């Protein structure tokens, strides 16, 4: 498998240098660097193959990383990850509007960097093959009616004794199965256990940090025992 090609936008020189070297240690190829939105747009337009862009939010120049992200969406369609010291709701809200492949929170370490990049890369694949489509919708009994739910609409599931709560963007359903049973059914659709009580849709992950996973704006605990398995699973989807 050829090395994944990464472009880095970060204005702080030491952080950028460390980031580039760390990425190389992790066996990625850094194909370009920029400190401002203008420089990034210019350079990216000349790069032929690009797998992902790492984007600092507060960068040089009048436009910040989020403005740049909007333009990237508009012009190139290359996936990007925000890499930032911000993690407050307002900034997240703004960042989310650009539909990023994920977030990396400063100060990052090597492991988190890799996990988040891999998640982001993995999320790109379904755009081509849509493995989640293969699995049919299943029916959930909800207030005396049966509702069809597509696996890809599920964000995560939470165990509740012998039952399981299933969360979608808009609703919450109670299934009369154990989480283990639900996991068996959804595993092939790109779901993974991250905690004794939680099963998540890998395609919905925004960020993995020490002990926590962020999905569509929600934070879910990441159990120590599950982390390693999760990371290995990411490489296979």
């Amino acid at each position: 498998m050829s090395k994944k090609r990464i472009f880095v936008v970060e204005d702080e020189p030491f952080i950028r240098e460390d980031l580039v070297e760390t990425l190389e240690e992790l066996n990625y190829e850094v194909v370009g660097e920029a400190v401002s939105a203008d420089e990034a747009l210019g350079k990216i337009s000349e790069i032929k193959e690009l797998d992902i862009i790492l984007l600092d939010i507060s960068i040089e120049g009048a436009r910040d990383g989020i403005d740049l992200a909007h333009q990237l969406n508009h012009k190139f369609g290359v996936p990007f990850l925000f890499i930032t010291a911000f993690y407050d709701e307002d900034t997240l809200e703004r960042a989310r509007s650009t539909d990023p492949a994920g977030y990396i929170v400063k100060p990052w370490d090597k492991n988190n960097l890799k996990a988040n990049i891999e998640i982001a890369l993995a999320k790109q694949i379904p755009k081509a093959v849509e493995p989640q489509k293969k699995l049919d919708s299943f029916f959930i009994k909800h207030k005396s009616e049966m509702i069809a739910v597509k696996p890809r609409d599920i964000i995560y599931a939470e165990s509740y004794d012998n039952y399981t709560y299933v969360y979608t963007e808009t609703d919450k359903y109670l299934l009369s199965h154990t989480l283990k049973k639900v996991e068996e059914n959804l595993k092939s659709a790109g779901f993974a256990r991250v905690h004794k009580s939680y099963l998540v849709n890998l395609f919905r992950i925004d960020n993995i940090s020490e002990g926590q996973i962020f999905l569509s704006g929600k934070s879910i605990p990441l159990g120590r025992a599950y982390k390693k398995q999760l990371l290995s699973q990411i490489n296979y989807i």
Partner: protein
Amino acid sequence: MYFLKLVSLYLVSIFVVTSFNVNARQEVQVDSLMTGLNVADSVDEKFFFLEELYYHWLNNNYDSADVYAGKYHQLAIDEGNKKNESIGLNYKGIVYDYRKDVEAASELYNQALEIRKELGDERLIGNSLSNLGALYFHNGDYTKASDYYFRSLDIREKIQDSVGLSQSYNNLGILFRNQNEYEKALEYYSKSAELKQEIGRRYSAMYTLLNIGSLYIFMEEYENAVSVSEEALLIAEEYQDKVSIASLKLNIGSAKSSLKNYSEARILLKQGIEALEEMNEYSSAFEGYTMLITTYLEENDISEALKYVNEVKNRQELFKEPARIQEFYNIASRVYMEAGDYKQALQMKLDEAIIKDSLFDVSSKNELLELETKYQLSEKDRELFALNAENDIRELEISRSNLVRNFSLFLALVLIGVTIYGRRNAQVRNQLNKQLTTSLAEKELLMKEVHHRVKNNLQIISSLLNIQSRRTEHESAAVALQESKNRVQSMALIHQSLYQKDNITNVKVKEYIEQLLDTLMNSFGVEEKVTLKTDIQNLELEVDLIIPLGLIINELVTNVIKYAFDDEGGDLIVTLNEFKDILRLEVADNGKGINSSELRNQSFGMSMVESLSKKLKADLVISSETGTSIQLDIKDYKRVS
């Protein structure tokens, strides 16, 4: 009274322009200057471009200006050009002057002066003395300022340096105006303006005329103010200096307003405001609004005044300078008072007081008390009025406005009002509570900003350690750098969890310690070898406690991972629990064990633990039976429930 404040603001900003003889420069592109500097063949050209770059940055960024002043100075030394060496020192001096570093600036100016004395160049000596005068003026030492100004003036008169003289006169004008000696100020300003016109420095003369106009407003000679300002306006229009045109219109408008020529005043003020807003000069535009509101107030057109008060209030975020906002609150409060809206009037006074408080102004508190009383009393008035229908409204109105002076009535009403005081007081307290909520929200925002910066800086430190560790050939040094990086990371984690939560001073200990342990296991890559067992109570602790505690855990766990086990590995046990009023941390392993005195002497990490324990006033107990156990009892700690 109100206009006086505005005028002084203009003078301060104008002073910056004139005191160093910095002419209005065309907007120059830095890029083209940089290019020019790079391709310059001759030394003269290099000096020219460095000078231009310096002046460009002087208006934008002092650090960069300092750099170019330094380059100019160095080039002069390299070329053995004494005169330019002194100019370079002067340029640097100006930067430090602007930064309010008096000592450094005066040192630099004096160095320049010494060189100039050696050279015997009297014109430059005059400039140096003038700069020193301006420096002391900026810092409020008017005695020294006038001493230097006059010494400079003597030399300039002797050698008939007209440009220098016109500047000296202007500076002396400002100095005298600042000491409220208006007649003298006017004399020097006039000399300066005349001389500038005579030697064809019309543009510079315009600024002096602007100063004169402001001075006349200050002296309440409004007709003179109008005629001088109109003269300046002609020149400003000739040079198409839009900011000056707009500022002059504001000055003329305010003078006309005082001459009760309200309709012309309004037109000029509105024109000025519009132009300033177009140029994004919001703080000056804001002044204009305040003048306009004052004009409507004088005219007794309360509804228009209210309209503009509301407009400004809606756009407050554009107008950032507290000193001017304070003036606005003051005038807005008067408008609300006239409109009979005492609640809003009090609100404005409270807003003003909050800003003034931050400026340590005591007098505003007295004003506030006065208004608070008036507000309470006006409510009382209404009740009295309702009870006694025969009372004349006018009489009540008059008594109300004179209440504060009319002390006996004031006292009587307060006594009557004792029963309702509690209720009123609660209302006022509510207002204050609202203010507190707002300022708390601002504080929270600032905290978030600080956290953001802290995290960014921690990332920089962590990256620096990483980079250096990669470049280091010695294994032990590289390991030491990585360990330091872990220490940084252990602190960074705290900021991470602080910052995601609404609670910004407490940390959830269980969450934090488990994350920290994860990071450490990861960074040493020992997840296979070491089995982690934890029992951490769900507590919330203050940042002051959790930072040293995190560092201690970091060191102890690092020790265990590095030294406790043979190849087959073992268990690492971390517990944190509360027993009565003791917080007990224990880090233990079932490894090969260590003699405790050996451990104490062993590492930098251990000596860190000892000094951190001392800081926490905690008892440290090391025991080594099966493996090693280190126990830390913190007695004096504040738990946040």
